[in-house]
């Protein structure tokens, strides 16, 4: 089961986890990306998230499908917020449910790594000096590329 939502509204983490719980699930790993103020003088006012409607849903579904094939997962939920967000607000929620914890952890990390490089979302930071589009991070590209080099480590 794959669930994807791109929304402006806040999300309810407890409700999302509730959707993923079942008798056959033993591990639910979630990742929450939040608006971080990386400025030296705590001057971040807001972060605006833009996306490519139509493509963004498909891109997230593609990433989730690949993760489902790679690991033993019962469900993946991806919720990506768009629009104007304040510091500490949740930007993205990724949840992976599995019988075993290593699949849940690896699946969640895989989805996040590819979400950073393969999903059409863009961030603009608003500080006192104005609005600046955030540029691509080299470390994000490397994190996604690492998955292509290594097969998953099935410990569990």
């Amino acid at each position, binding site marked *: 089961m794959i669930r994807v939502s791109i929304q402006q509204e806040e999300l309810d983490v407890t409700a999302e986890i509730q959707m993923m719980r079942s008798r056959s699930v033993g591990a639910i790993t979630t990742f929450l990306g939040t608006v971080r103020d990386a400025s030296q003088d705590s001057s971040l006012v807001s972060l605006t998230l833009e996306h490519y409607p139509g493509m963004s849903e498909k891109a997230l579904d593609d990433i989730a499908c690949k993760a489902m094939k790679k690991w033993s997962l019962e469900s993946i939920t991806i919720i990506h917020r768009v629009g104007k967000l304040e510091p500490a607000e949740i930007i*993205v929620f990724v949840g992976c449910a599995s019988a075993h914890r290593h699949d849940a952890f690896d699946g969640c990390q895989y989805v*996040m790594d590819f979400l*950073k490089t393969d999903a059409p979302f*863009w961030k*603009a930071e608003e500080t006192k000096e104005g609005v600046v*589009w955030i540029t691509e991070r080299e470390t994000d590209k490397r994190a996604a590329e690492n998955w292509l080099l290594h097969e998953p480590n099935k410990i569990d």
Partner: protein
Amino acid sequence: MKIYYFAWVRDYVGYSYENISCPKSVKTIEQLAHYLKKQSDGHALAFEDLNVIRAAINHQFVANDSKVKDTDEVAFFPPVTGG
């Protein structure tokens, strides 16, 4: 051809969407970008450095040498920074 722009590419171009008729000579994403570059000062700024622009055809990321057709939905945008 339907063309969408996102993030700072859109900011420079000034529009989020254009429907254009390309000359027959435009066959690839790169040729399309060079053609668009000549449309306005904003387009020129947006397409100044093609290394920092990504493209999609019909909702799929594509390389610069990918073929484009008049019926395609094309999009230009910066490298993605979601999550």
